[in-house]
């Protein structure tokens, strides 16, 4: 299970680096838009779309509403990966 979590984290980290075009980004659970200057609403859309594409999922309104930080995003992705 730890390996799965690590894999999800790595994939999400790659998405962040790619979307914000910054290879130095290292995500952490409490990370929010406050922590990345370029993370505005349009970049958030780009980010969510990139996540949906990478994990082949479609988030609904309820799930999007619950995304408070990177930690909640990781938990959500873990649930999707668990479901297969």
């Amino acid at each position, binding site marked *: 299970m730890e390996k799965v979590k690590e894999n999800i984290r790595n994939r999400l980290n790659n998405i962040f680096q790619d979307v914000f075009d910054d290879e130095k980004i290292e995500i952490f659970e409490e990370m929010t838009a406050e922590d990345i200057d370029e993370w505005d*609403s349009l970049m958030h*859309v780009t980010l969510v779309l990139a996540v949906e594409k990478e994990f082949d999922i479609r988030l609904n*309104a309820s799930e999007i509403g619950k995304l408070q930080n990177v930690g909640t995003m990781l938990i959500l992705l873990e649930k999707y990966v668990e479901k297969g």
Partner: protein
Amino acid sequence: MSDIREATFDDYEEIMELMQRFEIPYKTKKEWKGIWEYNPMIADDHISWTIGWVVVNDEGRVVGYLGNIPLVYELNGKRLIAAVAHAWVVDEEFRKYSVLLINSYFNQRNVDMLLNTTGGNSVTIKIFSAYKAKRAPVDQYDVARFCVTNYKGFLTALLKKKEFLCIILLSHLYHLQCGVLIN
């Protein structure tokens, strides 16, 4: 909890309030409804069409909107239906739900192509690219080009946009004088 649903004409007031908060040009209800009601594709073909989508807050108020306008094109004798995105606007507090609107637009069925004619900045290009949208083969996206077929109408519309009302009057007078001379 916020949610997304298809927009209806009854949403007009709340959509206009939202658009005005972001200084998007106001349309009367007749003008706004007319985009679809007088649209030849809908009026002539009687097809059902989603006029757009709205994000509503937990009280049911509209806090986000994306319009969806049908256009008909013809290529090699084949009729093509295009859906044009219009006025993507979401209150700041609810911006994270913007993705639901754009997802609905890109996942609609029964259209042959999706057109966006205003998304010229780098981020919107990124968003549209995520949906595999292709850029039109033009060099510059920040320069408007017009193919003028109705000179008087074009000039009037241009001057109106520039708020040179007095010049419009003068252009009308000039036109009248020309008409007299030609006659």
